């Protein structure tokens, strides 16, 4: 039976009701009683504690020593708890209380005080390769931010809370990743993985009574392992290629179609122009004809004759001519020699119309003409 078990007040070693106030047990009184008993044992006279006169009961200054001891003991019991801390107090090994910030006093040697930081958010990081649901391997980096929520559990209930946290994190993360596909872990469901891990991890921590509260779980990195990174990068490149090819095709389309539209417009415009030209020239020609016709109908014969002669005159004046009197009854003949010489080289169009017989005749005539000219000249000189 322990002295300080509940209900054992009468067995309190300090003999008084001091257990219930937080003041120091009355050591002075205890020592005085002891001294009295000892003095009684060894036949000395009983002394009292306030017998502080030098050389009272003896030369040894008992009360002074005791006062010093009491003061030292008293001061020793003071400690300070920061605003960020809580302190777990064990009294004679048994959980007594958890105190907050401020200045506290607990009897040393009897009470055991452990301070823990309650507000500091700490980070636990776990990394590694793990298997996914579709039996692929993924590289994951996970960060867990946590703080101590329950100082009593943290200090008293679990042997190594930090190691427990690490192990629970490892296990929870791998469990969650193992129930996700590789693609889910590295892209679509990252937040889901983090959230599931947080829930599961908190379950474990509560079960192990660590007193730890998980604030945030971040999946800081989840990617394919280095060994297959190339293949994964290539998929990214392939996606970009896909978009690039589409964009290039779109650019081609964006260029070809407007150009085609422009050309189409040009064809239509040209057709419109042709139409206008044809119609307008028809109108012009028709108007000209009608005007001429009006005049013609007034004097048909004369006009007709005039027009004919005009035309033939133009034609005649603009072309080379050879007058041929096939009957041969007339000596009148106009021969543009230079033109004839010129036309012997060209004038293919006319030459086809002129038969070789006709040409022979022409030369014959030309020779004759020359002869007569020469002869007439000679005669003229002789006459002189």
């Amino acid at each position, binding site marked *: 039976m322990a002295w300080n078990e509940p209900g054992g007040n009468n067995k309190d070693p300090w003999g008084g009701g001091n257990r219930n106030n937080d003041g120091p047990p009355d050591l002075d009184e205890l020592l005085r009683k002891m001294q009295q008993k000892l003095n009684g044992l060894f036949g000395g006279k009983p002394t009292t504690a306030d017998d502080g006169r030098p050389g009272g009961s003896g030369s040894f200054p008992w009360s002074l020593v005791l006062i010093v001891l009491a003061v030292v003991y008293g001061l020793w019991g003071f400690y300070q708890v920061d605003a960020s801390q809580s302190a777990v107090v064990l009294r004679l090994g048994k959980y007594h209380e958890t105190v907050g910030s401020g200045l506290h006093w607990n009897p040393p040697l009897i009470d055991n005080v452990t301070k823990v930081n309650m507000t500091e958010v700490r980070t636990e990081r776990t990394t590694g390769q793990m298997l996914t649901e579709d039996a692929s391997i993924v590289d994951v980096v996970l960060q867990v931010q946590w703080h101590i929520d329950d100082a009593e559990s943290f200090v008293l209930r679990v042997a190594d809370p930090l190691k427990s946290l690490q192990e629970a994190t490892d296990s929870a993360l791998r469990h969650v990743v193992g129930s996700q596909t590789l693609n889910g872990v590295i892209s679509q469901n990252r937040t889901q993985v983090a959230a599931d891990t947080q829930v599961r991890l908190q379950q474990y921590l509560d079960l192990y009574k660590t007193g730890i509260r998980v604030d945030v779980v971040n999946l800081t990195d989840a990617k394919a392992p280095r060994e297959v990174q190339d293949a994964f990068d290539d*998929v990214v490149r*392939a996606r970009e290629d896909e978009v690039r090819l589409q964009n290039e095709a779109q650019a081609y389309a964006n260029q*070809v179609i407007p150009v085609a539209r422009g050309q189409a417009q040009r064809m239509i415009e040209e057709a419109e122009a042709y139409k206008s030209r044809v119609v307008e020239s028809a109108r012009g020609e028709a108007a000209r004809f009608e005007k001429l016709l009006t005049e013609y109908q007034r004097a048909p014969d004369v006009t007709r004759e005039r027009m004919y002669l005009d035309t033939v005159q133009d034609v005649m004046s603009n072309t080379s001519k050879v007058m041929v009197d096939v009957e041969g009854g007339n000596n009148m003949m106009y021969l543009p020699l230079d033109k004839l010489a010129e036309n012997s080289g060209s004038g293919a169009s006319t030459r086809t119309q002129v038969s070789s017989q006709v040409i022979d005749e022409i030369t014959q005539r030309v020779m004759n003409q020359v002869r007569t000219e020469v002869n007439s000249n000679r005669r003229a000189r002789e006459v002189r």
Partner: protein
Amino acid sequence: MNNNKSLFVIALILVGLLVLSSSAFVVKETEKAVLLRFGELVRTDYTPGLYFKVPLVHELRKFDARIQTVDSQPVRMLNSENKFMMVDSYAKFRIVDVGRFYKATRGDERNAVRLLAEQINNRLRNQFGVRDLHEVVSGQRDQLMADITKNLNETAQKDLGVEVVDVRVKRIDLPPEVSESVFQRMRTGRELEARDHRAKGQEASERIRANADRQKVVIESEAYRQAEELRGAGDAEAARIYADAYSKNPEFYRFSRSLTAYRESFKDKGDMLLVEPDSAFFRYLKDPAGK
């Protein structure tokens, strides 16, 4: 005399403290203790508090009362596909019956940890041996772990005086040769995906280009149709105008048009005309009377 007495008192106090310190002991909240008398268990039901023992007769042994960890080394295991894997597990346990615990482990906690680790690995081996990799890895193992925990807890309570709180698999790793085949499979999967994307890109590109080409042809041929219609309309209009005008006197049209044609046909010095003097033009050339 008084001094002697005082010294004697001090000595007595010191001796008393010495006896007190070797006989009083505190069992903390985090501890379980057993009291032995010459190696025989006397008392195991300590709650936290202050106790006394008889020095030299009684021996006190303390154990950790908190939840502790069995962190066993990774173990090679065969699964149902006869592939090896490295399984790393841990367990959480707590001493509940310290007397039984002391007897079972002869006071050495490491023995308990070793025994538990062996049992856990045996159970995992049995369970994993009849499952394939997928079943082991995928998150459907909560029930499996719960069964193992429950089962182990029963035996551990009975044999070791220990409560098994939880058994968990930390990591399952594949040996290098299996990893390599997994990587190979992952690579081929990605290659499929990459090819698929590129092919889809080409498909889309081809589709877009062909569509553009078609639109081009459609636009141009429609334009051609419109252009031809316009030209035809122009020609028709012109023909109608000509016909309206010329049909007023067709003969005169033939005449005047012919004249224009002559004029247009013979306007080059290179054209040579062979003319006979008896044409209408030369009527007066031979004969002023024009006969």
